[in-house]
């Protein structure tokens, strides 16, 4: 059975070209970038080139990029690093109810330490209101952190507008761009701090970066040898970082985005032809190019995705039944307080490798699955 992988917001397949360069920096040239011998120099050179590629992709300077172990660490560093560095200014953080867990739980951890955190509501499509943001800004607000493109429902915020409000009030602005990076434009104009990672764009897992605007003080979270200009200690993951840069080079292509957008719209339109379905998140340009998230009434998401999985199709759900906490997705509950909508949600996230033929096979399997599960549901009649 051939796998149809439609869970690309969870992670992606590593591009073969990325694997090649990573192999090289694992086995052929493997020095520590801090070493003074020639192997060390080779590593340092590779690291510098990779840094430039990633900096350029955001319009940043090389020394504004801090490599990390991924999106989670970059978000922790952005939020805690900023809040700790600015305690003399204030102890108030603003974020939203639809952030990734690593941001939400960073907020919770700060609250436990006595910081004050505001979690902004979103509307029925997942948008943060600029007016609400402005109203919640305070004298002691240090940082605002808002996810660029949501990983579950694909909502792309008007980040420039939100960022401008913060700038007017002299408040720092961070955005988690793990999902949007290379899929929708993101530049240093749009934020003081930007989180990105590699494994959402056919790069390796365990590699990410935080862009920090020049002159912004940040408190490191790790004590060590003072790597990354004293902001993130630890021997640089050269193969991973080089792989990350390669993935960015390969990914930055409008043709990929256009292709994914067309397939996404095809998939959404076809699924919505199934009765009692509804789209979660917006349509059009304000939706992430690879995301379709649909709720199916009367049936539960985990059983849908497991049934699809028996046919080789990988998807995900916001159902409580499939979460570790047995809570329905906080993102879906934030757009509407309707647990059935969350329980019955399925997320399909495509990649540049996805084909229309794969989607057609998915649609056939999906229709049969929905039919089967609705027949055994006590919520449907008959």
């Amino acid at each position, binding site marked *: 059975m051939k796998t149809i992988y439609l869970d690309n917001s969870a992670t992606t397949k590593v591009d073969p070209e990325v694997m090649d360069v990573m192999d090289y920096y694992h086995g052929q040239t493997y020095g520590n970038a801090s070493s003074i011998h020639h192997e060390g120099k080779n590593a340092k050179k590779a690291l510098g080139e990779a840094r430039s590629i990633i900096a350029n992709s955001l319009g940043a300077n090389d020394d504004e990029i801090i490599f990390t172990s991924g999106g989670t660490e970059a978000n922790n560093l952005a939020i805690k690093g900023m809040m700790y560095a600015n305690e003399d200014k204030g102890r108030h953080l603003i974020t939203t109810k639809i952030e990734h867990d690593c941001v939400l739980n960073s907020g919770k951890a700060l609250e436990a330490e006595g910081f004050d955190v505001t979690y902004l509501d979103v509307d029925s499509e997942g948008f943060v209101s600029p007016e609400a943001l402005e109203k919640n800004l305070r004298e002691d607000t240090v940082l605002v952190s808002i996810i660029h493109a949501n990983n579950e429902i694909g909502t792309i915020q008007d980040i420039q507008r939100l960022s401008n409000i913060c700038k007017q009030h002299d408040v720092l602005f961070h955005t988690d761009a793990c999902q949007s990076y290379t899929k929708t434009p993101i530049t240093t104009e749009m934020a003081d701090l930007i989180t990105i990672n590699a494994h959402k764009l056919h790069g390796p897992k365990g590699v990410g970066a935080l862009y920090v605007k020049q002159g912004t003080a940040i408190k490191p979270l790790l004590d060590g040898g003072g790597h990354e200009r004293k902001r993130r200690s630890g021997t640089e993951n050269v193969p991973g970082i080089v792989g990350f840069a390669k993935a960015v080079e390969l990914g930055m292509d409008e043709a990929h985005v256009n292709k994914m957008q067309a397939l996404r719209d095809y998939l959404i339109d076809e699924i919505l032809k199934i009765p009692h379905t509804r789209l979660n998140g917006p349509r059009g340009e304000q939706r992430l190019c690879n995301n379709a998230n649909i709720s199916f009434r009367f049936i539960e998401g985990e059983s849908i995705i497991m049934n699809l999985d028996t046919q080789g199709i990988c998807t995900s759900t916001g*159902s409580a*039944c499939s979460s570790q906490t*047995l809570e329905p997705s906080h993102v879906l509950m934030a757009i509407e307080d309707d*647990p059935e909508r969350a329980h019955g949600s399925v997320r399909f996230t495509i990649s540049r490798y996805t084909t229309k033929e794969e989607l057609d096979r998915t649609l056939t399997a999906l229709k049969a699955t929905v039919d089967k599960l609705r027949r055994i*549901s006590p919520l449907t009649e008959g």
Partner: protein
Amino acid sequence: MYTEQVTERFKKPRFMGEIQEADSTGEVGNVRCGDIMRVSIKVKDDRIADIKFKTYGCVAAIVSSDYLCELVKGKTLEEAENVTSKDVIERMGEVPAIKTHCSVLAQDALRKAIKDYRKKCD
């Protein structure tokens, strides 16, 4: 996460549906907490002559419903009532710990159906 056995049973449950002229039905659960189950039974000579389920819920909820039906079919009402969710989980083989709460509802639904049946007969 699920064993081969559970996945196979999920693909082909044997007791799904609803008995048209059931002697009793029991429904438990609600949408807010996740799973909903409805069990319908046909009783003959104080035994469960036929049993079917309908479940809104995850794989564990569906498969545990199916195994419960298998376990109690043919048993006396008293025996059926005494089947525990532990028995059901044992029959399922291994289930992830987090899934036990989804696997106990079926038994609650059956007990409710039996209780209602007795009320009707009294």
